[in-house]
Structures are given as C-alpha cells and as structure tokens.
C-alpha cells in the first residue's frame, strides 16, 4: 500500500511566462495569432502530416505550441525545432478547420523566417536555394531563357536521347518523375505581349484588369495564360500585363526568405499601382498577393497600408468571372470531370464553388465528386522537391480519392497540376490534368470553330 496514493506533487498552474523570447530577429511570429489557439485539437484531422505520422509535433496545434514555446523561452531555434516547422505543407487546411480562425500558415511562415536567419542553408541545399529562389524566379529574362532551353530540350530530340539513354536517372527520383510529365513548353505570354500596353476586349469593354502572369505558370503553362487572356477578353475585359511585375514571392516566403519576399512584394505593388483589379490564375500566387501586408507587420511598416490596399484588388480568375458574369459557352465538351481544390484557393482564399460553377456552365461536362477534394496533393510550392518522401505519401492518398471513371481532373494552380500529373503517371491512371479556365477557353474555341485541340474529340 506504500505506493497507493503516492504523493505526486501537484504541478504549478502556468501563470508565469518567461519574457525571454528565443526569436532573435525582428519580424518574429505574431503573438496575436497564437493567442487565439485554445489547443482544442479540432485541426488535427485536417492536417495531412498529422494523418501520416500521427505525431502531434507534426500537427497544426503542435506546431503552434512549439512556435509559442520558443517565444516563451522554453525552446531554442535549432534543427529540432526546424523539422516540424519545415515539414508543414503550408496547405492551410487547419485554418479552415479551426473554430477560432488561428492563422497557422502565417505563423509557420514567420517561424521559418526566424529559422532561416538563425541557421542559413548551407551546402548543396543552400546552393540550390540560391540558384532557384534568388537567381531564377525573380528574374524575367532568366525565366525566359529557361523556357527557351526547355523548349529546345523538348524539340531538338535531346529529351528523347536523354530519356532513352537512362541518363535521366542520375537525377533524384522525384525530379525524374517531374521531367516525365513536363508539359510541352510554349513561348511565354510575357514575351508574346511585351509590346502591347493593353489587350483589348472582344466587343464592348466592360472592365479593365491587370494580369499577373506568374513565373512557373508562364514558363511551364503559358497556354493557360493564353487561355486566361482569351477568356477575359471574350467577356469584355481589357487586359494589361504590367511589364515590371515579378514573381509573387510565395516560394520565398514558404522557404523562410522573407527579405526577398518583401523585395518582390514591393516591386509588384508598384507594378500594379495603376490597376483596379489584379487577376491571378495561380492559387498560390493569388494567396500570397493577398497576404503581402503580413510581410510588412514589423519590417518596413510604411508599406503595410499599401500592401493592404493592394490585396483588396487581387482576385482569382474563377471568382472574378463568376462574380462579374461570363458568357456560357455554346459548344459541347462531353467529358467526365472531377475538381481538385487547390489549398491556396479553397483554404487560402475561400474560393470553392466558383470554379465548379464555371465547369458546370460548360455544356456536356459531367461533374464527378472527389472525396476529400480539398485535401492537399503534396505539391505545396516546392515542398515536393524539399520533402519528397512526405509529398509522395500525401500524393498517394490524394490519388486514392480521384474517381476511377473520370477523364479530366480540373484545378486552379500550376503546382497542383504538375503534382497531379505526376500522380496520374505514377499510379497508372489516364486522366488529363487541366486548369479550369483552360476548359472554358477550349469550349469557346470549339464554339468558334477553331481547330487543333484534340480535347473535344
């Protein structure tokens, strides 16, 4: 009986908080954001990394708790802290699930900013990050050169030789998978329209909009940008493409490089200063543009107000078309289509029904429901490159939810399109991966009798 009611020593109620924060740089994680978290756990099941690991440091509330613990001086900013913070997909599903609207994504990005300053990337990871994030995406001319190179790679026969010789296999597996699904590269719309101030609406002008062409989008999917311009002009919009616009900075902010994020944000805010409406067709970019103000909370606060104003002008193409009205196509596209909610569209911008309504407006399109359609596909910016294993597992469960009998998977984000195309190939499926606006444009084209798209055969 000696241990029967062992004196357990009641733990003290946590009324004291150390004032010594272990965040040493400015722009640190926002206390107001975690103050809303009551640790209720309603976020758990929404989180793909928690689903896969079952571990709470890989859950939204766990991450918030750790981020807060650093501010309370209970943890250091070190590699142990880095792991769960960087394993987050930043998919924002937890924000949708959270009863108190805790901005977990924002906290994660802020914490990554601290981590990257405390422990800059070294070795090959540092080099890769420098080459791509700083050396490539922010520079239009280099992106154009990359596009030209990829086009040459595909057209010259080099792609065939490299694939055939198995030389391709010297790259890591996930890059091989990405190369395998690389779409046919077309010239970018930025180059195509570089001498035109405004692409006039077909017929009467109802609105004037500015278009963010994006960096990955314009290199890899310039046909979607073409479609976006076609759809906008067809529905009475004059479209301008401000030439000094740049990469939105989402990839940088996700990676913790908030300085570059701010630099790009300022450039875009200036570039679009004359615009009333900024139209985006990439969910990740749209979400970033809408959140620019977060970057200027502490640093360069004189930009905060401008960023807030800018964010009110930003709109996803599907929401814009839906709200301002669009011509219902008359041609029929007889396809069974399922829709995948890009995280940064559904969770990030609350756009869910608008793209579905657009698809339903196309005669012949039969919509098939996808279970867990707003579950991340694992693309998550460059997560599929930085965390290939977790991204692969997330993709696998996504593909299990893609209905067997559909012909197309429609979505509104280029990262998802690449990832889902990898999924289709990897799991031996045969769906075509399309952008919602692309499908609408094809319907218009068919209506106009334009030949050349095998899609409506």
């Amino acid at each position: 009986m000696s241990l029967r009611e062992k004196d357990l020593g009641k733990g003290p109620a946590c009324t004291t908080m150390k004032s010594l924060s272990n965040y040493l740089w400015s722009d640190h994680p926002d206390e107001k954001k975690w103050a809303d978290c009551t640790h209720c756990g309603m976020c758990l099941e929404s989180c793909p990394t928690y689903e896969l690991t079952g571990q709470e440091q890989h859950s939204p509330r766990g991450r918030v708790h750790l981020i807060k613990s650093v501010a309370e001086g209970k943890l250091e900013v070190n590699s142990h802290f880095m792991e769960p913070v960087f394993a987050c997909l930043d998919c924002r599903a937890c924000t949708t699930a959270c009863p108190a609207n805790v901005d977990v994504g924002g906290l994660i990005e802020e914490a990554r900013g601290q981590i990257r300053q405390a422990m800059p990337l070294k070795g090959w990871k540092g080099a890769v990050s420098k080459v791509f994030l700083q050396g490539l995406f922010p520079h239009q001319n280099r992106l154009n050169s990359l596009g030209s190179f990829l086009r040459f790679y595909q057209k010259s026969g080099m792609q065939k030789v490299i694939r055939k010789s198995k030389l391709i296999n010297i790259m890591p597996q996930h890059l091989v998978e990405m190369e395998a699904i690389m779409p046919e590269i077309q010239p970018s719309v930025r180059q195509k329209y570089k001498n035109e101030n405004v692409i006039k609406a077909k017929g009467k002008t109802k609105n004037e909009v500015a278009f963010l062409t994006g960096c990955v989008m314009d290199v890899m999917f310039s046909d979607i940008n073409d479609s976006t311009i076609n759809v906008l002009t067809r529905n009475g919009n004059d479209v301008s493409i401000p030439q000094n616009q740049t990469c939105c900075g989402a990839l940088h902010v996700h990676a913790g490089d908030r300085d570059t994020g701010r630099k790009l944000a300022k450039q875009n805010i200036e570039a679009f200063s004359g615009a009333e409406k900024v139209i985006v067709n990439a969910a990740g970019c749209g979400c970033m543009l809408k959140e620019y103000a977060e970057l200027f909370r502490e640093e360069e606060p004189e930009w905060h107000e401008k960023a807030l104003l800018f964010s009110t002008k930003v709109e996803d193409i599907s929401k814009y078309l839906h709200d301002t009205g669009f011509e219902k196509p008359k041609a029929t596209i007889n396809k069974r289509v399922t829709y995948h909610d890009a995280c940064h569209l559904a969770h990030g911008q609350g756009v869910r029904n608008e793209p579905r309504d657009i698809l339903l407006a196309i005669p012949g399109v039969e919509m098939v429901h996808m279970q867990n359609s707003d579950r991340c596909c694992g693309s998550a910016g460059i997560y599929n490159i930085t965390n290939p294993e977790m991204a692969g597992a997330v993709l696998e469960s996504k593909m299990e939810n893609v209905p067997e009998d559909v012909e197309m998977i429609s979505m509104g984000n280029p990262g998802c399109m690449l990832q889902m195309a990898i999924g289709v190939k990897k799991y031996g499926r045969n769906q075509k991966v399309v952008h919602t606006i692309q499908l609408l444009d094809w319907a218009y084209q068919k209506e106009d009798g334009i030949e050349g798209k095998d899609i409506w055969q």
Partner: protein
Amino acid sequence: MAVKKIKTKDKHIKNLATIVGDASSILYQKVDLLAYECDGFTVYKHSPKAVVFPKNTNEVSALVKYCSDNQLPFLARGAGTGLSGGAIPLNNEVIISLVKMKKLLNVDLENRLAVVQPGYVNLKLTNSISDKGYYYAPDPSSQSCCTIGGNVAENAGGAHCLKYGVTTNHILGLEVVLPNGDIIELSENGILDVPGYDLLGLLTGSEGTLGIVTKITVRILKSPESKQTVLAYFDRVDDGSQAVSDIISAGIVPAALEMMDKTAIEAVESAAFPVGHPRDIAAVLLIEVDGIAAGIDEQINQILEVCKKRNVREVREAKDEQERASWWANRKTGFGAMGAISPDYLVQDGVIPRSKLPEVLKRIEQISQESGLRIANIFHAGDGNLHPLVLFDARIPGETDKAILAGSACLQACADVGGTITGEHGVGIEKREEMRFVFNDEEIIAQTNIREVFNPKNLLNAGKLFPTPGRCGEIKQVMKEATTVS
C-alpha cells in the same frame, strides 16, 4: 519518413523503441515531447519521458509490461482533445499513443455493431456507415477528431446524448490491456457479459486508470428516418430555461436540446462559423427532434407553441439540411471559438436537475462578477449538463488561479442544488479536489480500493480522478487508517 536512429543513452528509451520496432515509432527529443505536455486542458503542463506508438495489442501489452516491471509511470493518449487533463503526463509518464491503431476492424449491420481500434476517430465511424443508413450515436463536439478509445476512457457524451445516452450505453465489448500487461476481453462478439461484475461499465469512464483499451465493440443505430431542427431566441435566460423544462414536461424527448448564452453567442459569431445569431439576445436554444417522419411535424409544432408561451423573440425551423448543418457547426465549435474573444478559457462540466437551471445560472453570473472574469455558458440544457466557460488571460499573473477558483465555484453551485461535477468531460486533473463536493471520504476510498485491484503499483495514469493526499491531509489520514485495518 526516413528511418531514424535512436540518439540517446537512456536504456529505457532504447528498450521501448525495440518493442515498437523502429525509431520512428518513439519520440524522446525535448521539442517533440513539448507537443505532448498537455491535452485540451492547458492549465497544467508536464513533459512526458517518451511517446511510443504501438501498432497492435501485443505491442501495447509489451510496453505496459516493460513499464510495470521497470517502475516507469505510463498513460494512454488518443487525440488529446480531453478537457480535464486526463492525458497530461503529471509524473513524466511514458505516453502510449494509440493513434496508429486506427482501423475499423469490422462492421456487422445485421447485429448492429462495429469493432474499432482505439485510435479510430469517432466521426469516421458514422461517415463510413451512413450510406447504408446507420450511425454511431455518441457525438462529442470534438467528434471530427477525438478517438473512440478516448471516448471510452472519459465516457464521452455529446449533444445527442439526451435521447440516445452517453458512450457507456453504446459499448458492447472491450479488449483491455491491464496495468501488468495482461490482455483481457470483456463481452466477446457483442454479447454482454451478464454474469459476474459489470466490468464493461467499470472500465468505461475510468479515465485511463484501470487499463488501456485496445479494441472496442460499439453499438450502431439505424439513422432516423427524419430530423428537424428549431432555433429559438430569448430575451431573458429565465424564459429560455423555462422553455427547456416545458418541452421535456410536454413529453417530447428531443434528440438534442442545446443552449448558449450571450457571451457564448459573442464568441461563436466572432469565430469561424457564424450563422447570424443576434448579438443582443440573452439565450439561443437549438432543439432537434428525430424519428419516424410522421411524428416530426407534430413535435415541432408543440415546441414552437411552448417557445411562444415563454416569450420567444424569434423561433424558426431550419429551411434545409445546409442550414441545419451550419447551426450545428456553429454550436459544435463553440469551445474553440472562445479563442476569438479570449486568449484562454477553462471549461467546466456540471450537471444539475433541469428545474434548477435559472437558479444556477444566476449563481454563475454572481461568480463571474465576484471573480471579475467573464463566463460564457454553452450547455446541453435538455439533460442539465452545463458548460460554463471561464475566460481568462494566462499572461496576467494570478488570473489562471482566479479562473480555477471561479470554475470550482461553478461546480460547487451545481453540487449545492443536488447536481454533480462532471457530465461527460471527466475529472482528470481538473476536478480532483471537487470530487469532495459529491463524495465523502468513505465513498472515495471505496473507489480507490477498486483502482488498487487493477492498478496496484499506481503506475498507470497516477494522480488523476481522485483528490491528492498532498492537498488533503484528512483523506490521507483516513486512508492510512483504512489500510492499517485491512
């Protein structure tokens, strides 16, 4: 995830890792453990020694045996959404997390039962059988993420328990690992063990102090043919309370009868799932009836009549399933929504006779004024299960203690009118001392004697459920005498 290597000299951690097979099934680094220092009850925080993730009953048994043989305190944890601190490792426990045991093992529609592993999430069961016209009735507000294993430990309730009963009414069988590692099966094949002691009843709601449940057979029900939900706004809390009593007196047994007061309305309307409740209203009632379609309209009419008699400002039925769902999402996220109006909250869980509702609500209002802390009320009014939510800011020195005292005073108020201190959240750490509001020393000893039988070393989830002798000299004394005698 990549295969990890164990980087520690602690032999226990190495041995525990060997039992669960690999290093990715155990956590022992400070940062990872910090995520386990509390559950949904955040007032007390303690770091565990390690967190292990067994994949089957044999691994659970081996882990328990190892802990028992080596005098290591241990406890079980599911999703960690508990509200009384039942999964907080007060004694640097080894946490046995059951979230990887999350399979639905069997569904037997003919015999209306399902067999699940403890880490299976409550709502997933209903989701996986609803297309066949069945559901699992207990619906705690956290049902979208809490586990059925945790529900068994806490004997969880929910909004619809008014008509259908709490978890214990839906458990048909359990496989349990006892604190020495032995595995026992209670009621096999869904046939209740009628002969002998009701161990199933004893284990359910034992808050993880008697054993670790590793397999659960639950009752599943046919989905009601029809359901309808009514929303009623009252300008006076008294009128709302009276309406609750009147509905029950009229012989109606609603599936759910929920109430929120003004402060709670402020929270849910400021949070993620607002539905447009007027902010100036004193109380909102959410009343749901279900059953055979033919009887529903009549019950609804009766409810509307009762509400009108009690001066309702506005009362209406849900116009469609979407609206009904939005009302429930608004209600069921009510606790978390407190985050939108207060940095911290502490939720209490008293039960009172329905007729005492107005009296107790007045007392709670007084407690709020005396403590200077706001108290929101969300409750299962139909079965008299109150959830006063004490709002506070832990960053202000002394305010946490003030909140704890205010919460305790609310429970005292419940006990004073013949009620009790918990309806569905469990005692855990939070209400240990308050056990004395409803049990005398002999009654508490009778219970700890039972624990002694199952958990003689008191290594499993020690320090929960009963008042600690450290804070209660009298009980310690009495207990010493009791042991000397035995």
